[in-house]
């Protein structure tokens, strides 16, 4: 198993090759290693217990970069990633395409040009949420988390790497889906003539040019970049919830509750006395935030999508801090 030491291997400690020769106790116990690219020059810094054999493997001080590469390997080598992300694309683009095909006439469809992308993404986001949960809970479910945390005792580094890799991947996939959907909608629905009574509709502000429906640059950014950020952040929140609950089904149910329950609860709140509560529930429900990005809010201003995004980012940050605290302080 262990190969004999290469000829240039120096078994003794050579201070000139090492940065700090000796450190006070309590400081970092191991000095940084010589350039890891040179196998054989590695110094065995193991309390004088260097074996006769020695190893030609590089001894590097690990950092976040290692964890990022590792998490990327992890996320691309399980089928749940492929399934959930493929379904995200399929639902978002597929429903968007069906929607556009069904409404593709010269008649006015009653909403801004890119708004139809919302309906597909509403379903697609559920897949992103599931993946966000599974990225961490599958490790708890299988016991892989113990292997991972043994290999990387800096637990926060593992979670940060997971979060970054997942966020980047889900954002990229969602952006591709929403971008494609927006292109489909602008090419298939841009011939509509807007009736005069809609000219004063605040929701249609900026959408009408010379009586025809158009999408401004701002609309494009909202419906692609903004919506994708929103969904990727929801996924990140799901990852944090998964870390807190350590259970796939529990975490996915919780996230579905967060996304859907405010709207469903508001549906059944009849009567004047509950009106304020009902409106607040609808306005701050995650689905309304996403709808605002597409300029079809159920309650509130059409441009309120980015405010809702900021709110979601705050909630996600708080949940992630709680998740970090739980991961680093409790036994696994």
């Amino acid at each position, binding site marked *: 198993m262990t190969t004999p030491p290469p000829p240039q291997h120096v078994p003794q400690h050579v201070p000139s090759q090492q940065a700090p020769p000796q450190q006070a106790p309590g400081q970092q116990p191991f000095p940084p290693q010589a350039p890891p690219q040179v196998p054989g020059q590695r110094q065995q810094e193991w*309390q004088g*217990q260097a074996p006769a054999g020695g*190893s030609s*493997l590089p*001894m*590097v001080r690990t950092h976040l970069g290692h964890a990022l590469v590792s998490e990327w390997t*992890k996320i691309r080598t399980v089928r749940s990633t492929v399934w959930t992300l493929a379904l995200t694309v399929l639902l978002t683009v597929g429903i968007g395409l069906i929607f556009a095909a069904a409404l593709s006439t010269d008649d006015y469809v009653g909403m801004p040009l890119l708004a139809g992308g919302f309906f597909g993404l509403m379903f697609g986001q559920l897949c992103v949420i599931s993946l966000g949960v599974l990225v961490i809970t599958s490790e708890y479910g299988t016991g*892989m988390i113990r292997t991972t*945390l043994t290999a990387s005792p800096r637990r926060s580094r593992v979670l940060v790497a997971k979060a970054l890799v997942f966020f980047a991947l889900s954002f990229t996939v969602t952006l591709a889906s929403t971008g494609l959907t927006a292109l489909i909608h602008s090419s298939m629905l841009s011939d509509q003539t807007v009736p005069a009574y809609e000219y004063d509709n605040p929701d249609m502000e900026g959408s009408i040019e010379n009586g025809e429906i158009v999408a401004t640059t701002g609309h494009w950014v909202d419906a692609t970049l903004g919506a994708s950020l929103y969904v990727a952040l929801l996924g990140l929140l799901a990852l944090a919830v998964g870390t807190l609950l350590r259970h796939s089904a529990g975490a996915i149910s919780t996230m579905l509750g967060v996304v859907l329950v405010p709207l469903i609860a508001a549906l059944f709140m009849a009567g004047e006395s509950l009106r304020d509560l009902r409106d607040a529930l609808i306005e701050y429900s995650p689905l309304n935030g996403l709808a605002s990005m597409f300029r079809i809010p159920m309650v509130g201003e059409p441009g309120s999508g980015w405010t809702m995004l900021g709110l979601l980012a705050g909630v996600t940050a708080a949940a992630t801090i709680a998740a970090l605290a739980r991961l680093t302080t409790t036994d696994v």
Partner: protein
Amino acid sequence: MIEATGLTKSYGSKTAVYNLNFRVQPGKVTGFLGPNGAGKSTTMRMILGLDAPTNGSVTIGGHQYHQLPNAPRLVGALLDANAKHGGRSARAHLLCLAQLSGIPARRVDEVLDVVGLTQVARKRSKGFSLGMGQRLGIAAALLGDPQVLLFDEPVNGLDPEGIRWVRELMRRLASEGRTVFVSSHLMSEMAQTADHLIVIGRGQLMADLPVRAFIEQNSTGFARVRTPDGDEAGREKLVRALAEAGGQVLAEPEGTLKVTGVELPRISELAHAADVRLWELSPHHASLEEAYMRMTQGAVDYRSSDDQRSGLQAPPQQVPGGWQQPAGPQGGYAPPPLGGYGAPPPAHAAPPHPPHASHQAAAPYRPEDAR
């Protein structure tokens, strides 16, 4: 070197590990022995920083695990063969672990070869047998070519060839100057593999000694005596005579007697004096497994009992089996006591009965108590 100092772990009111002090030396295979639930895995998890000790500490080479700058390059561990994502291939599983500590991908192929999984490297590990899973776990432990290796029950599920391979691997790793710490609940396995033993029961240290010393101290001999079948009176008489001569007698289920404390010639003389014929008088050695079970008797959490079958069947015939203490007035056949037989525990062993286990039958059984 692994060093535990006052290591304690409590879960609520239950103490899993209590005040463990031991050192695991490099260049040896150290066996970590104890019954199920004795706290072996908990101790291993604390060594690896997965569980935080309630009290005390454990260090590797003088450092706590989480302080190590690149843990897998210094410490390799097999905790649980199932601690992997079944949907990932063997190679991808090892690759993500290698990348976590900057180990090049070629090392992954090396360890796959070492454990003999090269042919199934690209298969999803979900379909692996328990033995293949163990091999994959061992491969993960070897990835960083570490100086310290921990294996929790590594031979579970392996076939005889695999067991021999693991045994040789551990011996080789130790001969290279590495620290090898292997847990097991099988004494026989450890007797063949380990140089040193650390025995725990109910979370407490029971023995910390070289395997050779354990064998010498615990393989005390006994004599097996068989009286003619059906001669109950003669047997009673012999038991009484042996007890009076200072011997300890255990009636075995087959009707034979297991005698310690009396030399073979003396047994023959006693039988002759009592006018009892003997069909068998043979010298025996207690197995290490028995010695180990004696040591941990008071510390077994999960003990099976005979299935009484709630009167569904005719009650089984009372099997005579019990201790005859030297002072005992007659051959009282009673259930075997706990911790009353054989050689005293090694002098440097911890007291075998932890405080929270005091409800366990600790004192040797005396026939008077049964009345």
